[in-house]
């Protein structure tokens, strides 16, 4: 059976949350990204289930659950494409 891949933060991305917004520096290029509040929330809690993240966002902001879930998936894909999140083999038993 193929083990599911686990998502982790790229250790080569330096980051820090400042007044509710995360600032990320991508190691190789030195490119800097500043996330908005929602992006910061997902970035800080990405280990949680997308449905749980979407529910929290939907409750806090005036967006539907479907819309929030779509945005969470989209954001995680963007972070993967940028190299800020990467997939690794799940080592949990």
């Amino acid at each position: 059976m193929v083990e599911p891949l686990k998502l982790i933060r790229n250790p080569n991305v330096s980051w820090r949350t400042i007044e509710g917004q995360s600032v990320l520096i991508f190691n190789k290029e030195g490119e800097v990204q500043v996330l908005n509040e929602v992006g910061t929330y997902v970035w800080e809690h990405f280990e949680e289930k997308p449905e749980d993240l979407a529910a929290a966002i939907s409750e806090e902001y005036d967006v539907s659950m479907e819309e929030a879930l779509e945005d969470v998936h989209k954001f995680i894909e963007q972070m993967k494409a940028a190299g800020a999140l990467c997939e690794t083999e799940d080592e949990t038993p």
Partner: protein
Amino acid sequence: MDWYPEAEHFEMPGSTLGDHSLVIRIGALTLRLGGLTPLIKEMAEKQYSPFLVNDHSSAFLVTVYPGRPTYLKPPPPFGYLRLEERQLERGSLLVSNDFAAYRNGNTVTLRISRPDDCKSALGAIENNIRWIVADHAINHRGFVIHSAGLVRNGGAYVFFGPSGAGKSTVTGLSEGCPILSDDLVLLRKTQAGWVAATTPFAGTFPQEGKTSGEYPLKGLFRLIQADCDRLSPLPRALAVGKVLSCCPFIGNRAKRQNLLLPLVETCCSEIPAHDLFFRKTPAFWKIILETRNG
């Protein structure tokens, strides 16, 4: 083809280019440039005249030797200078098309491809000084930022932005203000607070008018050319992100980034940061000074 030297290339570099030297001081950093020919020394003394000191207990030593005919493939005409940094086992490498430098601790071995071309040699030396100043600053609670630094009423105002943002323009519009640099300014935290220091790094304004010194930092301004003059406060995270984007030598060095991020955050929490929308007139100063005076 690109050629990236290993540490061995610098271990037995042979004779230096010449036996002349000079010492300069930038902020808290003292740096000795050795192995110079009489002509390169003369030109370097002219270029760094406000920064020359008679201090032989130098923290950093850069020694110049002849190198290979080329290192990296030259950039296309009108292309950007290729400047790459690599971490080697016991030190770090800075390489371009016409020089390669190896730094181990406080010692830099600089090998240049065209020893007879003074302009090329001075360019190599300048890029090495930028590299050293940027790294030294981070290890001493400071950082360098692509910006124009100007002094007004005894305080330093730093206008930052990428190429074309208007650093030289605001410098030209600030008659009577001593210039720290119109290219790269050194900021560091001292016991008395943040200060901005003069650097020898010049964009389009000449060095001659500079006086080496440090001034209390009064504000950080991101330059945005517009058809009106106004200031808009930058939220702290955005200020940190924008300042970091203007810090050189940030790529490929996790250790440096991990030091730089909290340092820039501290600076942006202690020094007001604004977006400065400005026209090409000196009127922006009135708004800055009014805002500062409350």
